């Protein structure tokens, strides 16, 4: 039984685990990834940090991993109250692992939020984060002539990173017109510096950056060959269109926090300013379930720096609750102040880069919404006619969200489409209906069947490290 198990080794989880371990707790850090760092610090096996901001912070945290038990390549599929963490390890010769814990920090981050458009299932259309992960983790550019589109400041590092690696960026198409946002950026010297850097890189690589534009269709037979880009009105309805040749499209519309584990535990959630469901936490990053803390993007999308701060606060809070070393009050005050500032910045970002209902105008009856079960927009409309009133009931009547990804990719879009017909926009209940996954990762029946009857009776949890 560990004092603390931290799930997720991104900025938040790393900071939490290191803070708690430094304060004397017996900590295990469990992560699905092959290397520590999560999405932001995703890196190649022979990384030098060239592609990364804040690489020093990561090197410090990585250097502290010897204070704890770090378990890479462990996919958590379920967490039982009490707590027992059920994971699977081994990328081909998979085996089950259980770890007992007195406290948990959930730092599972987020994944790209997808909005469908005709042709988005063609090979060569990727999420913006996916293109970034390929570049940072594998040093592979997703294509040669790339269109970057969607909304949010994240499109900038993606486009400039790919250009720096030699790809031609045919354009960055930002659906919003975030005029007022510069004012907020100016208040944060590091963000301002980062922004100026992107602007210089866009100029250097001659990358066209268009606000109020979107990719509304991708074309090609068995891979993407071109996209239709439209100028959008304020509500994102397409106004004027043109076709641009490309072999790759990287699209992102913000991020969706990964909440399956906190929902398994019964943690309360709330709707954040970006329209995502997030875990509700108090000032010490505590969730509504005693002993369960959450940090980073699971509590609201706000970038790696905020994740680092929240993670450290969570780690310190767990350590204090466990009777470990009391944290230095001045240090905590600094962290709290920083969290306040970064959260305010995130709120301004969400206000400047919303998703507008006009995104649905690009869909046709035969546009896929659920990629796994191949459910089209038309079939969702039929489900609504049959009596579905939101994404959960639409799933039962159309299979949208029932496939392997369990609605991670289509859930957000399905929530818009199925509430739209009832004249609503998605609320927290709708999003909850797409976020519950009692089995968070595929688990072989053999491994399920082999689970011993009374895992918590065991003195020593299985621990491969």
């Amino acid at each position, binding site marked *: 039984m560990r004092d603390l198990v931290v799930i997720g080794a991104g900025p938040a989880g790393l900071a939490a685990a290191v803070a708690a371990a430094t304060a004397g707790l017996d900590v295990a850090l469990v992560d699905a990834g092959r290397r520590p760092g999560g999405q932001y610090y995703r890196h190649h*096996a022979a990384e030098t940090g060239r592609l990364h901001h804040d690489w020093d912070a990561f090197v410090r945290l990585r250097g502290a991993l010897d204070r704890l038990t770090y378990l890479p390549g462990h996919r958590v599929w379920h967490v039982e109250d009490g707590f027992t963490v059920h994971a699977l390890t081994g990328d081909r010769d998979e085996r089950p692992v259980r770890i007992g814990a007195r406290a948990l920090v959930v730092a599972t981050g987020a994944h790209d939020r997808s909005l469908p458009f005709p042709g988005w299932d063609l090979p060569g259309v*990727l999420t913006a984060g996916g293109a970034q992960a390929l570049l940072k983790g*594998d040093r592979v550019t997703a294509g040669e002539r790339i269109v970057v589109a969607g909304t949010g400041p994240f499109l900038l590092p993606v486009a400039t990173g790919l250009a720096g690696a030699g790809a031609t960026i045919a354009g960055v198409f930002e659906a919003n017109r975030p005029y007022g946002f510069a004012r907020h950026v100016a208040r944060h010297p590091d963000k301002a510096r980062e922004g100026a850097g992107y602007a210089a890189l866009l100029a250097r690589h001659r990358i066209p950056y268009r606000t109020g534009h979107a990719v509304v269709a991708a074309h090609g037979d068995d891979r993407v060959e071109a996209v239709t880009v439209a100028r959008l009105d304020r509500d994102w309805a397409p106004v004027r269109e043109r076709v641009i040749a490309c072999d790759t499209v990287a699209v992102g519309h913000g991020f969706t926090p990964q909440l399956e584990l906190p929902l398994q535990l019964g943690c309360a959630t709330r709707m954040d300013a970006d329209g995502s469901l997030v875990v509700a936490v108090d000032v010490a990053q505590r969730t509504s379930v005693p002993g369960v803390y959450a940090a980073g993007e699971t509590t609201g999308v706000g970038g790696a720096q905020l994740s680092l701060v929240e993670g450290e606060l969570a780690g310190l809070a767990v350590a204090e609750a466990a009777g470990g070393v009391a944290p230095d009050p001045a240090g905590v005050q600094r962290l709290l102040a920083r969290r306040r500032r970064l959260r305010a910045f995130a709120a301004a970002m969400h206000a400047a880069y919303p998703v507008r209902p006009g995104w649905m105008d690009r869909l046709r009856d035969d546009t896929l919404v659920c990629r796994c079960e*191949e459910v089209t927009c038309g079939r969702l409309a039929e489900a609504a006619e049959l009596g579905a009133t939101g994404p959960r009931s639409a799933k039962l009547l159309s299979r949208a969200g029932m496939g392997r990804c369990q609605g991670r990719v289509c859930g957000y879009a399905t929530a818009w489409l199925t509430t739209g017909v009832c004249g609503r926009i998605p609320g927290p209940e709708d999003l909850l209906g797409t976020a519950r996954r009692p089995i968070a990762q595929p688990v072989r029946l053999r491994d399920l069947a082999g689970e011993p009857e009374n895992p918590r009776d065991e003195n020593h949890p299985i621990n491969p490290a």
Partner: protein
Amino acid sequence: MSQFVFEGRPVPFEPGQSIGAALTAAGIRSWRTTRFGGRPRGLYCGIGVCFDCLVTVNDRPSLRACMVEAREGDTVEGGDRDA
């Protein structure tokens, strides 16, 4: 450079690269077809979330190509067990 075999053809990879990344770098954009529409699929999310990128590695089906690190001598086929 190391390599694995994808549907009979050698695909080079750098140590530490995922199978999906190596395929993409080799210009292979899709390696599986969907079970209803027969549509081609490759990488989409890149981080193990979407399950679009499934491959069979050394007869182990339904693995996510973006999550599995390539190893010298691997035999990789596209698709999951339903294809």
